[in-house]
């Protein structure tokens, strides 16, 4: 079974594909820990068929609207800690 995650992005199109990025994802595995967030290093692709070994990544826009289809994500490792930015920073990739 593929795992499923969700992430929030300003513009679906601008999420860099095919190279390693740092991204905050939320785990959609059912149960009391659903929506747990972590920052990971990962590679993403808009076409899950091109990343058969990947898990599913649902995208939501900055205003929370869900993408029609999930992307694929391959998590390479977890990044400990948080974003070293002051509070109220705009976080989204443009």
């Amino acid at each position, binding site marked *: 079974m593929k795992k499923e995650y969700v992430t*929030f992005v300003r513009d679906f199109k601008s999420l860099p594909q095919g190279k390693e990025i740092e991204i905050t994802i939320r785990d959609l595995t059912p149960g009391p*820990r*659903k*929506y747990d967030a972590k920052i990971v290093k990962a590679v993403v692709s808009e076409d899950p068929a091109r990343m058969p070994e990947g898990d599913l990544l649902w995208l939501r826009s*900055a205003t929370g609207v869900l993408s029609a289809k999930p992307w694929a994500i391959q998590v390479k490792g977890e990044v400990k800690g*948080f*974003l070293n930015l002051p509070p109220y*920073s705009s976080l989204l990739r443009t």
Partner: protein
Amino acid sequence: MAFKDLRQFITALEKTGDVVKIKQEVDWDLELGAIGRRAYELSQPAQWFQKIRDYPPEYTIFNGSLGTWRRLSIALGLPPETPIRELYAEYDRREQKPVKPVVVKTGGCKENIRVGDKVDLYQLPTPMLHEGDGGRYLGTWDVVVSKDPETGWSNWGMYRFMIHDKTTLTGYPAPFSHLAMMLSRRYIPKKQPMPIAIAIGCEPLCHMVATAGYGINVDEADYAGALGQAPVELVKCETSDLLVPAHSEIVIEGEIAPDKTAPEGPFGEYPGYRSGQTGGGLLCQVKAITYRTNPIMTVIALGVPPDDSSIAASLTAGLAMKRRLVRHNIPVTDVYVPPEGVTHLIVVGVKKGGADVARQIIEIFTARRAMTSKVIVVDEDVDPFNMAEVLHAFAVKCHPGKGIHVTTFEGRANALTPCYSPEERRKLSGAGVAFDATWPLDWDPNTDVPVKSSFTGTFSKETQEKVIKNWKKYGFK
């Protein structure tokens, strides 16, 4: 206090039929939020959810504390049918006499204590309230305590906080909130973490004052005491010197990082839309969770009015705005904030209206943080609390060409106001408008002002008295 704690309040609601105990298992993931929403929209009782999916039955959730005028009246210890105008008046009277809290050695919130590596936020049945929210909001109907280390000012504000991971929350006390003010003045410059405590499931007046805009250096606890006419009992936190309501169901103790952030939002917000965006919230590292045995988590399934937010704000914002107008020498009679207008639309009654007064009122309301955008100004013949009368006055007395006064501003608009464009939100630019539904002052009452064709407007005192005296004789009830 009318009630010592949330449990006494729920018991009172049970007696008047203002709460339903939901025994059927409910999913914390959206089902609970949907039930809460539908209940507000159908004017149903508050809900006490007894069995939450994935969680043991000891952990329950209570939604809708002050979601109707009835429940607000009960929270104040008044009869459930108290008219809105009387509620405003009684609230105003009680607020004149602040009552300092007292510090007690211990309280219900200390029955269970989890500190350090025992902390696991997923122990609590935090709901995912709306589809599209940024996460599970643990702090919705909360009291967030922070303290100014230099003056000792202890602030209570209701701010949203969602779960990031097992020991971390992100929240959005707005940059102009008192918490953010303390953070940016006292902690960010020194790069020190700021202790906060999030109290959940307090006696309802504690939450009510946390939603209200009191001044800088004002301890909201004194006003919870004023409204309850008895001191609030406070107890010290485990990991800081902050004081929290001793009978809270749940207390989350944590520290806001001065230099770190993580995603927060969006959230189905109080104007009735998910009008914000995800952004870098305040990051709170949780140091301790303390809770009563069988803790009851209070939530608000926030959204279109009326709900606890729009009902509570009707009163607190209405009184605050009236006081502000009085300070500016506006000849105000009453201010009513209809819950349907979610503090965006304000009705102001004046003894003497006219264009200048209407313009001044909208300038006063948008001078600092412009959370409000529309004001209807009415003459004394209109009851500001009666929206049917207000709508009638607006329809026929507000001149569509000369009676609409617009003001625009930058840097202080309400970012959650749904009609603002993405660019306006970014720049916090917005506009305010006064709809002047009063007669122009230069109209001659004998020749220019139309006479109102109503029972009190058209008939002599004698005729009115005669009709009232004989009313039942005519066959009316």
